[in-house]
């Protein structure tokens, strides 16, 4: 799908916020795609991490929000250790999650989980998921 770019579509505030929250210079990304190759979850993503990085560079906030990539990320840091440009992509994904979570919007709703699911899981599964997926 073609992407329309103009000064109006480029949300500079969004780009700055992501750079601030992640501490990463997203402009360093030169679109090699190593991150997606390293990502064990990339087959489950609508857009691989490389494409998300490109959308962030272009400030296309709505397009980034629409894709589920950062909700499928498991913070395994495979992309981070492989990136030839030294970008810590796990931090960029965290920043993208936080833009939603800090509005008190949960991606996983704890109250919707059954007692059976909660009872069967190790505590670290619950704690880590709530840390990454709830506001």
């Amino acid at each position: 799908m073609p992407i329309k770019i103009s000064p109006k579509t480029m949300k500079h505030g969004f780009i700055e916020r992501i750079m601030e929250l992640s501490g990463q210079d997203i402009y360093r990304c030169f679109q090699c795609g190593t991150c997606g190759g390293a990502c064990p979850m990339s087959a489950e993503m609508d857009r691989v991490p490389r494409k998300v990085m490109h959308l962030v560079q272009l400030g296309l906030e709505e397009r980034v929000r629409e894709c589920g990539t950062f909700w499928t990320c498991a913070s395994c840091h495979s992309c981070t250790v492989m990136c030839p440009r030294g970008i810590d992509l796990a931090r960029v994904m965290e920043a993208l999650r936080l833009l939603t979570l800090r509005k008190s919007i949960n991606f996983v709703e704890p109250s919707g989980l059954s007692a059976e699911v909660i009872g069967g899981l190790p505590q670290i599964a619950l704690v880590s998921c709530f840390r990454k997926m709830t506001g």
Partner: protein
Amino acid sequence: MKISYYPGCTLKTKAKNLEEAALASLAALGIECEELPRWNCCGAVHSLAQDDLIHHVAPVRDLIRAMDRGSTKLVVLCSMCYNTLERANAIMRDDALRRETINGFMDEESDYRGEVEVVHFLELLRDEIGWEALRGRVKVPLGGLRVAPYYGCTLVRPKEVSIERGGEERVFLAFLEALGARPVEFSAESLCCGSYQVLANPQAALGASQAILESARRRGAEALALSCPLCEFNLSRRQGELLEAQRIASGFPTFYFTQLLAIALGLGEEVCRFDLNDRASRELLIEKGIAACETALVS
């Protein structure tokens, strides 16, 4: 030198088989370490946002308690706890601005500057006992059992906290060799098992686990050695779903690395809590003559 031990939440409930085998082994090896009399959840994952310091407070509190006990080392078994505590420790050691803010926030605790060294149990064995000496303590060698050491993510990433220091020796492989097992290197050894996506996106997590089990089996491994209760859940307890969907042909045994240690040290099955493992795992040890059938099959 005094060593404190941090168990973490899961080891007291779902992963007693990780903890009990480890503590019995430490006692047998004569390594003295004391569980922190008071500890709290480390938070399980390291917070990655630049402006988020509050989530580092929980692990730092645990580190301060270890320091206040006079300990120079804090040993950790669970991979996720190890990662979270060590990354928080790195901030307190290396980042003056964040250290000052966190210390200032915790006005009732001692100031902390990264004085305590966080070590994973495998590192403790390497540093306190050494692989040659460990080999000498083995009473029941694992008979060439082909075990694939599964590192997962949090023991090796990011590289600043990796238990592997680079170079010739690889700690998990050397450990298994010392026990008389035949370690099997496999390409998925540090791929993610799906982690907490088991809750948010369970099918995606299942695919990630399947790839790891297949990779280990293709390389001829008979079992996986694990260090993380969440990896154990994804790679072992969810095998039923993979079997039902015919995505794997048969069950694949998994053990916590501490269970293999305790068995090799001749401590018997009582301390290993094999009742918490799946049936295929226990059956493998019986088949290999490493475990006796009567007690191992009681569950």
